[in-house]
């Protein structure tokens, strides 16, 4: 079995021997102490556990970690919720990324269990709109389609939606 290694939040992870039965979320939590990614349904239904995979061709996607083993991420470049905020020299977060800030300001979440998944997916949406802006009138449908697979048991989605819509509209160049 080849040793598992990958780049997480721009840091190369030490190669380690790992059982093929370990799911990615378990690897993040138990081996790397990255506990920000949340385990919700464990069946690929709620998207709470999604992280970002940046592919070599410049595209990125949001991938579930509860149903895919750690080994399926072999050699990949990934981003988790811990990687979004700017850190100081001591490693403490000093500035949230725009999506995190918008969600916090609008009180988008309550228990926060679903938030890492929403944040990753919304961050990807912002990046995608930077490359390919869309018409303003299409924005609401576009956001709904994008967040469709994310479940939240507390908030009723309205504030997530609103925060993201306001954020996108406030940034130049994301809509036409």
């Amino acid at each position: 079995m080849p040793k598992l290694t990958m780049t997480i939040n721009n840091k190369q992870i030490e190669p380690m021997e790992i059982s093929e039965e370990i799911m990615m979320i378990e690897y993040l939590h138990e081996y790397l102490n990255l506990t920000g990614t949340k385990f919700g349904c464990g069946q690929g239904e709620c998207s709470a556990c999604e992280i970002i995979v940046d592919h070599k061709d410049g595209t990125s996607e949001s991938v579930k970690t509860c149903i895919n083993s750690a080994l399926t991420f072999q050699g990949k470049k990934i981003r988790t919720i811990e990687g979004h905020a700017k850190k100081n020299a001591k490693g403490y977060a000093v500035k949230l990324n725009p999506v995190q800030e918008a969600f916090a300001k609008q009180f988008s979440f309550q228990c926060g269990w679903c938030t890492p998944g929403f944040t990753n997916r919304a961050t990807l949406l912002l990046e995608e709109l930077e490359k390919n802006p869309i018409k303003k009138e299409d924005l609401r449908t576009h956001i709904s389609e994008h967040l469709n697979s994310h479940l939240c048991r507390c908030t009723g989605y309205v504030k997530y939606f609103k925060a993201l819509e306001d954020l996108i509209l406030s940034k130049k160049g994301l809509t036409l």
Partner: protein
Amino acid sequence: MKKLTILWTIFLFPLVVCASKDTTLIKKGEYLSKIADCFACHTADKGEPYGGGVPFITPFGNVYSTNISSDKKAGIGSYTYEEFYDALHKGIGKHGNLYPAMPFTSFYLITDEDTKALYAYMMSIKPVSQKNRDNEISFPFNIRAGLKTWNLVNLSNEKFVPEEDKSEKYNRGNYLINSLGHCGECHTPRNSMMAMDKKRKLEGNLIVGYVAPSLQSVELRRQEWTLKDLVSVMKNGYSRRGTVLGHMTPIIYHSLSNVSHEDLEAMASYLLDSDEEVETKALTFNGHDKKDPGYLLYTGYCTSCHGINGEGIPNTTPALAGNATLNTKKPLNTMLTIIYGIKNERYSQTNAFGHMPSYNFTDEEMTNLINYLQKTFTNIGIKHSLEEIQAFKEEVIKGMENAEH
């Protein structure tokens, strides 16, 4: 006073008997309509119950089911018993021949007694005024006169005859499967005239993107189904041998889950051609081959739900060990679930299954995974080449595309 009571009794008694006879007949008809699954085909999504409007996609265009509620104008409320009988048995409606999307090529076997009960029930349901939709059938198939010729060739007028050397249970199953249950309409391949190919009865068929698997006893026994497994899959949509899929889900929900245990057992007994329970075999798990290229694909994408040894999770994910869907020469339904995923299936408060996501595997990965699943969890002993898997994949995708258009 005494005289008055006697008089009342004399007048009322026949009425009471009549009413209770009617209620019994209506109740029986309601039960039979569940087996025939009239509701599912005659109730559109968000439409009125029995109001029709469900599209049937055929190679000649879309046919829409009609309103069969007791409404005198929009439905069949004005049908006499004879007219109702003819619609069911001969495919002749009041306004002309019916398209064989209505399974009269199976319903012709329904007994008079059962037809009477069905009639009583259909006439008792709430009338709904939902208008029928025009069919979208291309020329020359839109000329209904052609259906007369089709019926002449493909429709029999024989009555159901129980097989003499078989038990009552088997024959009840035979009747239910082949008449009311109209299982062959999907599970029997069609001939060049699009009629059920009688020589290949229940052999399995590709229909709107899915394989309606073989229900022949030889194949069911090879896949190690027992009477109990078959009853379970019909009643609950799942069993030790796996779950149902696609179009079979609403059939379980509306129809088979409402059928009595006794009738389900009869159907299972007919399908397995056995009155007694057949030998129960352990679920197949042949052990993992860690050097096989399919092993890391299996552990990578399947195990969190289907279990490291293919044991599944009760009421969430079916076991892969001994799974009949996997245990077929042409594993099209397995590939279909991998490519398109499965939506949640909810039968009742206590019986529901989670969804399965779709996977975008390369053809090489798909070949390795399918071969690994079949090698590990079945005894079918087949290894597919990349070209075979590519051809299967094309068949699956084409089937789904046709189903959507």
